[in-house]
C-alpha cells in the first residue's frame, strides 16, 4: 500500500508539471482536462492514505508498559530479533506481524524497505564490520536476491537459499517457531492469537474443532507433519544450490546475491 501511495505521488507530481506546461502553452482545454485528472488522483491518494491510517490505528498497542519510542532500538535490531525467533527467511509483512505479536516497540514498515539497501552499502564499504547483516534470501536457480525475503548473514547458506519447496517449508517452520514462542509465553499481546490463527488456518489439521482458541501444541504437530513430507526434496535443492554458490560466488555475492549476467544458453538471441 505504501508503494501505491508513492506511485500516486509520482503521478500527482507528473500531472502538476504537465498542467504547468499546458498553462505555458495557453492550451486551456488541456489544462482543464489535466486538472480534472489531477483532482481524481489526489482523491485516490486521500482515500488510500485514510485506509492506511485506519490500518495502523487498528493495531492495538501492548497493554502493559507503554512501548518505548522506536528510535531507542534501531530497526535492524528489531528485524534481527524477529528473524532469530523465526529462524527462516521472512517477508517484511510477516516480520511486522511477528514483531507486533511478541515484541514491544514500533517497527514502521517504511523502515524495512530502506534497510536492505543500507545493509549492502554498509557491507561493501567495510566488509565484516558488523556482527551480522540483514541480507536477501537467494534463489536456488540463479543465486540472485529473492524478492522481499530477508535473512541474517550469520545463518548457514543452506538456510538462506530458497528452492521451489522452501516457501512452504519455511512457512511451516515459522509456524512451529511462533507456536513455540507462544507456549513460552514470550511477551504475548492481543496480536499473538491472531498470528497463530493466520498460520493454523493454512495448515491441514492445525485448527481445533469448534471455535476455541488456537492450540500451539496442535499447530506444531500439524506443521511438523507437513514439513516431513517436503523435507528431503527441499533439503536437496537447497544443498545443491549452496554448493554451487560456494564454488562460484565471492563473499559479497554469497550474502547479497548475484546480479544477473545471463542464463547460459537461454539468452542468446534478443
Amino acid at each position, binding site marked *: *500500500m505504501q508503494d*501505491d501511495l508513492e*506511485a*500516486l505521488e509520482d*503521478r500527482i507530481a507528473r500531472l502538476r*508539471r*504537465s498542467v504547468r*506546461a*499546458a498553462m505555458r502553452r495557453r492550451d486551456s*482545454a*488541456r489544462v482543464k*482536462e489535466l486538472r*480534472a*485528472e489531477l483532482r*481524481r*488522483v489526489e482523491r*485516490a*491518494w486521500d*482515500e*488510500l492514505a485514510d485506509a492506511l491510517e485506519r490500518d495502523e490505528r487498528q493495531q492495538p498497542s501492548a497493554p502493559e508498559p507503554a512501548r518505548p519510542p522506536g528510535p531507542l532500538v534501531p530497526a535492524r535490531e528489531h528485524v534481527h530479533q524477529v528473524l532469530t525467533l523465526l529462524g527462516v527467511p521472512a*517477508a517484511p*509483512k*510477516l516480520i511486522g506481524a511477528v514483531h507486533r505479536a511478541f515484541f514491544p516497540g514500533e517497527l514502521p514498515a517504511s523502515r524495512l524497505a530502506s534497510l536492505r539497501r543500507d545493509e549492502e552499502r554498509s557491507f561493501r564499504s567495510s566488509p565484516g564490520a558488523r556482527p551480522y547483516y540483514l541480507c536477501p534470501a537467494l*534463489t536456488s536457480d*540463479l543465486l*540472485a*536476491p*529473492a*524478492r522481499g525475503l530477508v535473512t541474517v548473514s550469520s545463518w548457514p547458506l543452506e538456510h538462506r537459499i530458497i528452492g*521451489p*519447496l*522452501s*516457501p*512452504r517449508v*519455511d*512457512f511451516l517452520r*515459522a509456524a512451529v517457531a511462533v507456536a513455540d514462542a507462544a507456549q513460552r509465553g514470550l511477551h504475548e499481546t492481543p496480536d499473538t492469537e491472531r498470528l497463530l490463527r493466520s498460520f493454523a*488456518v*493454512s495448515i*491441514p489439521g492445525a485448527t481445533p474443532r469448534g471455535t476455541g482458541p488456537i492450540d500451539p501444541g496442535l499447530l506444531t504437530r500439524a506443521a511438523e507433519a*507437513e514439513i516431513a*513430507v*517436503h523435507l528431503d*526434496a527441499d533439503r536437496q535443492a537447497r544443498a545443491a544450490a549452496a554448493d554451487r554458490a560456494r564454488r562460484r560466488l565471492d563473499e559479497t555475492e554469497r550474502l547479497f*546475491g*548475484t*546480479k*544477473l549476467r545471463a*542464463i547460459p544458453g*537461454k*539468452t542468446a538471441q*534478443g
Partner: protein
Amino acid sequence: MDSLNTRLAALRGGTSPVGFSARTIAGLNENPGCARRALLDASGADKDRIGARVGFPGRFGQSPFALARGRVFEEQIKANGAAQLLRLLREKLGLTIEEAAYLPLEDVGDNTGRELRARHTTAQLLRAAREGDDAGTLFDHPMLRLRVAGCTAYLEPDLVAFQVGGRFHVVEIKSFAVIDGQVDGEQVTAAARQAAVYVLALRELLADHGLDPETVSHEVLLVTPADFTNRPVVSLIDVRKQLAAVRRVLARMSRVETLLDALPEGVSFDLAPDDDGDPTRDPAELAAALHQIPARYRPGCRAHCELAAFCRDEARCADSLDVFGPAVGGMLGGVDTVCAALGLAEGTRAPAEDEAEIARALRHAETLRSGLG
C-alpha cells in the same frame, strides 16, 4: 511480417507503443467490425491519450483505489508461498500435500525484461509439463507470449498458473466480492474473457513445443473475497465459449494488413510528444486522421473503448443511427441515418423499394406519437 510491423509503427509515430494486454485482446471482441479500433490497437497507439488530445478525455480504466485494493488482496493470497491459495486448492480441488512448490516468475534475478521473463517462464512451465508433479505447482506471475496481428503480445496473468491433477489451470485473483455466493455477472464475464486469453497463450506455448495443448484446462479458477471480508473463496469457470471468441478475433486481427492497404497515404496517430511527454500534435489534424478510418460506434463502446466519446460524437454528427445501438439499427434495417428515418416517418421522403415496409411502420408510429401529443 517486418514490413507489416514497420507500417504499423509508422501509423503510431514517435509515441512509444502500448502493448496488448489480456484485457485489450479480450476487448477486441466487443466490437469486432470496427476497423478504427483494430488498427489503433494493432499499431500500439495509446487510445486513451489520443482521445484526450482530440478533446474527448475518457474516464477509463479502474480507479487507482480499486487497483490498490486488488493488489493488496493478491498479495494476501500469495503471501508465504501462497499459503492461502494452497489451502483453497487442497480443500476444494484435492491438491495433494506433496504439491506445494512455489516459483515466483516476476523477475529473473534482478532483471524484469519481458522477453527474458517469457523465456524463463517457458523453461519452467515446459519442465513442469514434461517432468510431472514434482517440477513446480504454483507459478507466480508467469510471462506468456501470444502472436496478435503479427506482433508479440506479452501477457502476464497477474495471477498464478499451476498444475493440479496433471493439468495446468489459470488462476485469476480478483478483489470484487462474492456476496452470498453471487458474483456480479459482468465482472465475472470480464475475468473469464481475460482468463481465456491466458489459456490460449499457455496452450500455444505447449503446442509450440510438441506437447498436448489440452493439458491446459478450459476451467479457470477465480479467487475472490467472500462477502465483505478478506477471506478468499475459489470458483471454477468454464471459459470454452470465451476461448472460441478470442480465437475468432485473433484470426480477424491477422487481416490487419488489408485494413492498412485501404488507408490513404500519410495517415498517422503520432502524438508528437515533447520532452515532458506531452503531446504537441495538432488536435484537428489528429482528429482528421481518425476520421479517415471507418468506425462502428455502438453504445457498448463506452464500456470497453477509450475512444468512445470521440466516436459517439462522430456518429451523432454523421447523423448515424448507430448511436442508438444495434437493436434500433436492426429494427430500421437498411435505413441508416436519423434524417432518413424521420423523413420516412413524416412522409417527407419517398421510400425506396426496399424501404417500403419500414416506411409504413415508421409512419404508423408517427401517427401514434402525434396522437399522444
